[in-house]
C-alpha cells in the first residue's frame, strides 16, 4: 500500500474541518484535508441559517449569502407570533441573520485553507485509522486510484454527524435517538415569503421535539424544513411526513426544486480527544441542542483545534493529555452547549397549550438581543412558575 506522511490530516471539508486545516497550516504545519464527496459542500445537509456573527470568523464573499434577514419570527402552535427583529433590538444581530449558500460557503472555506498551503483531496474517504498501541497515527484513505496509508501525528476528525473516525479511535460517538434530530427540507419556489424574516414554527403536531422552519432564499423562495426528535419518529410520522403536511398547509402553491435530508446531534458535548486525535464540529456534537445551529461552533472549535495542534507540535507531544488543552479552551462553548441541552430537555416536553401560553406571555416585549438565550431569559421572567427548572440554568 502507498504510504504518505503529513503533520496533520483533517477528515471532512465542512466549516469545522476547513477552519482547523487552515489554522494548522498557518502555523507552518504540513496539512492534508480530505473530503469523501466528489465536490466540497455537496450534498448539502443543512438549513443554511447562520447568525451574522459568522463575520467574526470570516469575511464572506457576496455569493455565499443567499439572503440577509433582519430578524426571526417564532410561531406557537396557535399561531401566536414572537418577533425578534433588529429594529426592536437596537441593532443587535439576529440568530439566523444570513441564509447561506452552503455549496459555495464550504468551497470558499476550503479555498482559504488551500490558499494557506493545505493540500485538499476530494472523493477521498477515510476507511480506517492507523494505530500504534493506543495512539492514532493516521488514516487509511480510499480514492479513485487506490488505498493509501496517510501517517500523521494528529488526526482532526471533522467527519460530521456520523463521527465514524472518533468511534474507530475508541471515543463513544454513538447517539441515542432522543439526542438526535432528523430533518427533511424542501428548497421551494413560487411561495409567499417575507424575505426579511426567518420563521420558526413550534408544536407537537408540527414537529414533535423540534421545529419547522422557513428560511428565505431569494425572491419567493425558501428552505422549508422540519426537524423532529428521532425517538419520536415512526412509520407514517417521519420527518418527511411532517414536512409534507406543513408544506401542504402553508405553501400549497409552491414548487419543490430541491430536497435535503439531515441529522443534527443534540446531545451536548462529548469527550473529544484521545491520543493523536481531536474531534471537531458535528463529530464532537458541538451543535446547539436547542437551535440545532452548528456552523459557528464548528468554526470556533476548528480554530481552537488548529491552534492546539500547532502547540502540541512545539511540545512534540500528541498524547491525550497534551491535546486535552483543546477541551480546556472549548470549555466556555461546552458549558453553553450543556446549558442548552438541559433547556432543550425541558422545552421539548411542553404541550401545545403551554407553548401557546408562553408565546402569549411575550406580547409586546422588545428584545435587547436576538438569540435563544435572551428569549429564554425573558420567558423565565414572565413565567416563573412554569419555567422554574429552566430558571436554574439561566440565572
Amino acid at each position, binding site marked *: 500500500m502507498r504510504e504518505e506522511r503529513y503533520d496533520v490530516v483533517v477528515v471532512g471539508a465542512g466549516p469545522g474541518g476547513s477552519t482547523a486545516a487552515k489554522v494548522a497550516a498557518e502555523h507552518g504545519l504540513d496539512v492534508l484535508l480530505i473530503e469523501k464527496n466528489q465536490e466540497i459542500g455537496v450534498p448539502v445537509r443543512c438549513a443554511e441559517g447562520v447568525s451574522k456573527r459568522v463575520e467574526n470568523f470570516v469575511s464572506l464573499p457576496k455569493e455565499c449569502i443567499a439572503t440577509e434577514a433582519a430578524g426571526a419570527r417564532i410561531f406557537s402552535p396557535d399561531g401566536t407570533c414572537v418577533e425578534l427583529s433588529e429594529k426592536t433590538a437596537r441593532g443587535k444581530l439576529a440568530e439566523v441573520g444570513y441564509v447561506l449558500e452552503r455549496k459555495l460557503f464550504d468551497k470558499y472555506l476550503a479555498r482559504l485553507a488551500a490558499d494557506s498551503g493545505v493540500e485538499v483531496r476530494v472523493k477521498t474517504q477515510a476507511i480506517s485509522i492507523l494505530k500504534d498501541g493506543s495512539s492514532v497515527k493516521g488514516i487509511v484513505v480510499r480514492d479513485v486510484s487506490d488505498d493509501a496509508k496517510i501517517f500523521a501525528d494528529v488526526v482532526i476528525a471533522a467527519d460530521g454527524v456520523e463521527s465514524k473516525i472518533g468511534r474507530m479511535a475508541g471515543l463513544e460517538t*454513538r*447517539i441515542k435517538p432522543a439526542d438526535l434530530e*432528523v430533518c427533511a427540507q424542501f428548497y421551494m419556489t413560487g411561495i409567499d415569503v417575507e424575505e426579511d424574516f426567518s420563521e420558526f414554527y413550534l408544536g407537537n403536531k408540527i414537529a414533535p421535539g423540534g421545529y419547522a422552519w422557513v428560511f428565505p432564499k431569494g425572491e419567493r423562495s425558501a428552505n422549508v424544513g422540519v426537524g423532529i426528535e428521532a425517538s419520536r419518529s*415512526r412509520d407514517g410520522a417521519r420527518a418527511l411526513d411532517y414536512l409534507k403536511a406543513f408544506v401542504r398547509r402553508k405553501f400549497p402553491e409552491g414548487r419543490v426544486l430541491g430536497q*435535503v435530508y439531515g*441529522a443534527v446531534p443534540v446531545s451536548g458535548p462529548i469527550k473529544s480527544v484521545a491520543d493523536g486525535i481531536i474531534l471537531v464540529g458535528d463529530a464532537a456534537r458541538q451543535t446547539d441542542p436547542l437551535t440545532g445551529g452548528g456552523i459557528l461552533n464548528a468554526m470556533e472549535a476548528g480554530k481552537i483545534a488548529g491552534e492546539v495542534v500547532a502547540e502540541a507540535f512545539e511540545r512534540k507531544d500528541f498524547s491525550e493529555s497534551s491535546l486535552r488543552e483543546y477541551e480546556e479552551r472549548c470549555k466556555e462553548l461546552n458549558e453553553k452547549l450543556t446549558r442548552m441541552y438541559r433547556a432543550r430537555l425541558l422545552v421539548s416536553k411542553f404541550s401545545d397549550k403551554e407553548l401557546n401560553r408562553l408565546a402569549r406571555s411575550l406580547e409586546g416585549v422588545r428584545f435587547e438581543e436576538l438569540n435563544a438565550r435572551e428569549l429564554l431569559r425573558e420567558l423565565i421572567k414572565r413565567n416563573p412558575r412554569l419555567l422554574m427548572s429552566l430558571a436554574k440554568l439561566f440565572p
Partner: protein
Amino acid sequence: MAVRVDRYKCGYCGACVTVCPADAIELVGVCIEIRENCNECGVCVNICPVGALELENKG
C-alpha cells in the same frame, strides 16, 4: 443482511449511521452500506426521515 436500504428513497443524511448501536452502518459517499454484524434492532428503521430502511422479512 437484516436491514435493507431502498436506494431510491435514501437521502443519505447519516442518521442511521449515527444511532446504530452495533456500528453496522456505513455511509460511503452517498451510499448506505449495512454490514453483517447488524443485530436487527430496528432503531435505524424507525428514525429514517424518509422511510428508506426496512427490516428484511426472512420468511
